[in-house]
């Protein structure tokens, strides 16, 4: 087929981009070459709208072994061990085919992790759906959860935590973000940089089919009425083959055969081969007739752009082909030598003995477009003035009931019970806590991980929201007794071509960057997903932050269930009574405006680090951060989990009771202390200038707020635990 401007546009390229291609090549590309350009230059692979801004994130630190730029980030957890982790989105496919979309998302992120030599040890997910009233939500939720479980369970990797939210803005565009942690020895990490001339290039895994051709372009196009036409681009996942691929790759990696390895993710063979060559400053030559194909008569274009799952590309040392082949044969996987590294600095493709494409690699990579898109700042909204008198008409009990059974607060047990969270025998904190925790197999160490987002805050004020998500994630790690090390981030936004959406992106990234810098919590990997919108309306800006922390002695891990009668619960951090953008404001007052709670990074850091000191001295019996729903929601969850009640002290705080209970001021935690240690604890808190109050004393069975207001734990449970299950059945 002759290539022309229109065909380029149909491939998602812009006019100017097509012109640039012709200029760079000094000719018109052929059809296969155009396909390669379109895949490499689309938003998903080239980060053309985001690159400029992502550069501002802090990505280095004492514990960072590998920052962004590889298949996943790597951090040091001492004793020669390292954790490899990353988060990735699979939003558009999951909307079209929830089961397969979510499943292949999980498969893709696990491949990113084991490509680096790490055995996956934990999965997490952050999933966002439209309103629970929307007619599509239930099926999408069911399909996504089945898909995540279907893939992760089969792989034998525990899913240890996650996050689920519901909001109108996702009605036509759900979000499915999957995160994986892997464990590797520091001196056995594998990278994607090819090296050496004339080295064999190996294809392993599943056969190539026609599935997912142009999936990466789909991820970069917003949904419109043409959605139906895009349907066949969804891939079907094969977790069984991926499990074999994992074992086979790890077996080969135990030796010294591999120079470079790269999974075939978005844009399949195209991006994997080009990335490996580009990083090694080499050329690459592929004979496409050697690529194992599932379908007969696949064209070079189709072979290069297929997004069939469960495939890897490896550059081997010369002479190691037989050793490698034997391993892949053992695991019943396809194995083929499909090319060589060259010094041409071009990607050269051959098919039926003819050269069917030849493109300078730097043209595809370094010369890829980068845009400084127009963006709009978001002003900090004015605070709402509430008539405190109106609050007096509210019954705390009724409000609490509504909040605990709100879809965004209600227990997600129905979801995580469908995920195998105990396989591998090292899960010491299951989903349902502040962070999931797995032991580092055979050691006394454990790693904690949590994934968080706060789209409402980000929407109200992106810079504050960006900071807040990082801070909340940090708090979740602290709450289980882990020292936060680094994060990965999945930035889900609307169209970058829209000034408002782009502004949200820029400012969220700014907020994330500021918080990460201050908290010494660098970004080591991530993913950007733009065009999450239906027609012209973007989703609320939704950066998901996945954080990882280390617990040196796993026996010191903290959970959130209340432990013992007569222990004292302290509120750490100051309660100012910030109501705007809280769940209380939204669902009780129906107030959608106003600024999100302010994030004071000094307090965040100081409060968090002081709590870690207390935990280290074995002074904390249980802990939970205060987030959505405020303090009373947080204590309710601790009561439910621990099957204990609490008698609340009369607050000395001057603010209104409603503000005291439901405000979402940041930087706060609840911690349970043995009364014998109270002096010691308060001394440490005072010495570190940490603000605290005594919330109350643990008792059996009830939350006693005052003489008139008493709730039993069973009541709380029935509000909180049944909503999702009832909704789904």
């Amino acid at each position, binding site marked *: 087929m002759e290539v022309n401007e229109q065909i380029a546009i149909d491939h998602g390229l812009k006019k100017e981009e097509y012109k640039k291609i012709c200029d760079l090549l000094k000719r018109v590309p052929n059809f296969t070459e155009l396909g390669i350009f379109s895949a490499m230059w689309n938003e998903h692979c080239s980060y053309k709208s985001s690159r400029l801004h992502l550069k501002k994130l802090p990505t280095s630190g004492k514990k960072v072994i590998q920052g962004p730029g590889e298949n996943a980030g790597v951090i040091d957890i001492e004793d020669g061990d390292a954790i490899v982790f990353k988060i990735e989105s699979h939003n558009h496919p999951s909307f*079209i*085919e929830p*089961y*397969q979309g979510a499943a292949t998302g999980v498969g893709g992120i696990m491949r990113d992790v084991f490509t680096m030599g790490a055995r996956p040890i934990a999965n997490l997910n952050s999933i966002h759906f439209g309103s629970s009233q929307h007619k599509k939500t239930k099926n999408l939720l069911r399909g996504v959860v089945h898909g995540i479980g279907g893939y992760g369970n089969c792989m034998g990797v525990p899913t240890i935590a996650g996050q689920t939210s519901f909001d109108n803005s996702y009605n036509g565009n759900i979000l499915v973000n999957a995160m994986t942690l892997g464990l590797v020895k520091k001196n056995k990490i594998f990278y994607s940089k090819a090296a050496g001339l004339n080295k064999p290039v190996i294809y392993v895994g*599943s056969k190539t*089919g*026609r*599935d997912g051709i142009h999936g990466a372009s789909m991820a970069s196009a917003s949904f419109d009425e043409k959605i139906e036409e895009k*349907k*066949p681009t*969804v*891939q*079907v*996942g*094969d977790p*069984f*083959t991926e499990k074999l691929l994992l074992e086979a790759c790890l077996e080969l990696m135990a030796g010294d055969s591999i120079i470079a390895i790269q999974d075939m993710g978005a844009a399949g063979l195209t991006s994997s081969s080009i990335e490996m060559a580009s990083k090694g400053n080499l050329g690459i030559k592929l004979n496409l007739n050697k690529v194992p194909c*599932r*379908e007969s008569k696949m064209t070079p274009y189709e072979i290069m752009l297929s997004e*069939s*799952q469960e495939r890897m590309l490896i550059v081997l040392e010369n002479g190691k082909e037989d050793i490698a082949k034997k391993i892949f044969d053992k695991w*019943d996987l396809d194995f083929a030598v499909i090319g060589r590294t060259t010094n041409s600095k071009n990607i050269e493709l051959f098919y039926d003995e003819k050269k069917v494409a030849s493109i300078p690699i730097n043209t595809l990579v370094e010369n890829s477009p980068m845009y400084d898109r127009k963006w709009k700042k978001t002003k900090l909204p004015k605070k709402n003035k509430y008539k405190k008198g109106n609050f007096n008409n509210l019954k705390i009990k009724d409000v609490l009931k509504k909040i605990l059974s709100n879809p965004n607060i209600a227990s997600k047990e129905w979801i995580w019970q469908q995920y195998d969270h105990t396989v591998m025998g090292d899960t010491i904190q299951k989903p349902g806590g502040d962070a999931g925790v797995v032991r580092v197999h055979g050691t006394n160490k454990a790693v904690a991980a949590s994934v968080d987002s706060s789209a409402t805050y980000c929407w109200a004020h992106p810079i504050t929201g960006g900071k807040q998500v990082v801070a909340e994630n940090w708090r979740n790690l602290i709450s289980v007794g882990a020292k936060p090390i680094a994060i990965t981030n999945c930035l889900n936004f609307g169209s970058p071509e829209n000034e408002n959406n782009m502004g949200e992106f820029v400012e969220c990234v700014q907020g994330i960057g500021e918080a990460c810098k201050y908290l010494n919590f660098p970004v080591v990997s991530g993913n950007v997903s733009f065009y999450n919108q239906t027609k012209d309306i973007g989703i609320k800006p939704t950066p998901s932050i996945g954080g990882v922390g280390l617990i040196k002695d796993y026996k010191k891990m903290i959970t959130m269930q209340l432990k013992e009668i007569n222990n004292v619960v302290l509120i750490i951090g100051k309660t100012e009574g910030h109501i705007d953008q809280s769940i209380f404001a939204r669902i009780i007052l129906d107030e959608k405006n106003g600024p999100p709670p302010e994030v004071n990074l000094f307090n965040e850091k100081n409060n968090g680090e002081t709590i870690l000191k207390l935990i280290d001295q074995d002074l904390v019996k249980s802990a939970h951060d205060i987030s959505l729903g405020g303090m009373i929601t947080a204590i309710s969850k601790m009561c439910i989990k621990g099957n204990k009640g609490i008698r609340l002290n009369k607050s000395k705080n001057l603010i209104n009771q409603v503000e005291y209970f439901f405000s979402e001021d940041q930087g706060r935690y609840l911690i349970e202390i043995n009364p014998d240690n109270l002096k010691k604890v308060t001394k440490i808190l005072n010495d570190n200038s940490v603000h605290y109050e005594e919330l109350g004393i643990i008792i059996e069975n009830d939350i006693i707020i005052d003489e008139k207001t008493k709730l039993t734990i069973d009541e709380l449970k029935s509000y909180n635990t049944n909503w999702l299950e009832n909704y789904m059945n």
Partner: protein
Amino acid sequence: MKVSAIITLKKDVLDPQGKVIHQTLDGMGFKDVNEVRQGKYFEIDVKENDPKKAQKIVEDMCDKLLANLVIENYKIIEIQ
């Protein structure tokens, strides 16, 4: 009436199950197999007594629930 429908994966869609079954059959000595594809089969007993209408109902079910037309096709194979 009892309406029978089969639902199959579209031609170019990967059928992981079929693939593994094929390999297993091969290992068991069934050497001369070109391909195995797996699908679903439904037998739906509806109160409707008019065959045309019964077929219509089941097709409607396939469209709305039983098949995902993104990756699957369906066919009514019997009405009794």
